[in-house]
């Protein structure tokens, strides 16, 4: 079998696999980076809501 065919076929396969795996890795990297920020914001919002709730109950008891 001609070695050129083998090399061309392997290069094609590797390119497709690298493209698809790379795409998923990129998506995972971006998602994890952004989700970390989102989580920090959610925690801040949660703290804010808790604070506001506790100050409201304190006002009502007074």
């Amino acid at each position, binding site marked *: 079998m001609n070695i050129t065919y083998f090399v061309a076929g392997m290069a094609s396969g590797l390119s497709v696999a690298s493209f698809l795996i790379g795409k998923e890795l990129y998506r995972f990297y971006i998602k994890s980076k952004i989700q970390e920020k989102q989580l920090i914001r959610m925690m801040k919002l949660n703290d804010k809501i808790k604070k506001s709730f506790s*100050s409201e109950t304190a006002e009502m008891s007074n």
Partner: protein
Amino acid sequence: MRNRYKFTFIGFCFLADLLAMVFGALIFLKFAKNGEMEWSTLVTTKTIRVTLICWLFSILYFQLYQVGTLFSLDVFYGKSWRSFLLQRILWQTYVFIFQGGNLLFSFGKSANLFQLSFLLIYFLISRILFALILARIKKSTLKPFNVAIWGFNKTSIQLATQLETNSHFMHFKGIMNENSSEDYKSKSDFSLAITNAIHSASKNNINELYIVAKPNFINDLNSYFELGDRYCMRLKFVPDFSMISKVHYSTANFNNFHVIKPRHEPLQNGYNRLIKRMFDIVFSFFIILFVLSWLYPILAFLIKKQSKGPVLFKQLRTGKKNEPFWCYKFRSMYSNMGDESQQARKGDDRITPIGKFIRRTSIDELPQFFNVLSGSMSVVGPRPHMLQHTKVYNDQINDFMVRHFVKPGITGLAQVSGLRGETKKVSDMKRRVKADIKYVQQWSLMKDIKICILTVIVAIKGDENAF
């Protein structure tokens, strides 16, 4: 500035891909002329033209180089792959037709192989380069387009995530008041805070400011817009409904009226419905002509031989908009063997020997292509249930009727996801309904084709829930 960079980048991508296609066609021609077999002149003389037409059709169909929307690299990669795949399918079909239906020419020749290898390597390298160029553009932009959000709530956090994910051609500065502990007690406090935020945003060179707040906090939206105009800043108001709606909803504009819907439905678009109907007609016509034309008489003979009764079994089922229709199947059970409304169970003695086979392979559903041709069903969609089952499940599952917003199908997302067969518990049906609603929300022609291919694979492999 963001548009200048965006247009240049997208224009560059378009030209690079186009040149790669031309170069790929030249590689094809070089090997086609040197090859041991003779290629048709229709293929070799029009190679570049046909390659480019196929590529242009693909990029237009998938809208690869969109400049009007927020640029997402992830979406760009996905569309690149789909466009390339469609281009190859169109090109191979052309070669197959004009090379006298010879499959060896279509796939097995060196000209095709080297052209394909070149294009695949190009797509890998070019997409890595594009990502690096994008990162470089973002770093080296002298006057970035600054975007910020004011308002700290669930909606603003979700919006920030969206903007941060796709901030290739703009600089997202974050949520301005995310660290503020201020709590606004009255409308006037809130109004003052927004006015101060607009002033401060203008000082910080913000070009676009999103105000995310509950609508009942706003007294006069126009006054804020006017203030934004005065600072030459684009002000956008995003209503925060996170406290009144816990789930995601879809919004749209209808003649300048804001419409809030519980979900996005692509099949509400007339163009999409037309595409689906055309696909249904072509697909069902093809199956009736090439499969049912010879399979029907054979099965009719076997069914009649094994048990008395008609070849086809018809039953009233719930269709689109909750309207009943007659659903046809090959009869797989003995006639007059009790309640027809009872679901088939494993080892059901009502099933005939040929019935067992046609049920396991789903061949019993093939007459439903007549339903598809008549318009009461679709090739892909939620499976239709018996009328009494619809009534029972509608009482138990809140969003059960959403699956009836579209035409029922011969196969569906739930069926290829392993959620077919008997539903012993309500939770089984809930899972199926969830998959059906996901299909209603995410419909696309490609998804329909994918489900059709997966159905064939599932039928060949055999599903343990099919009996």
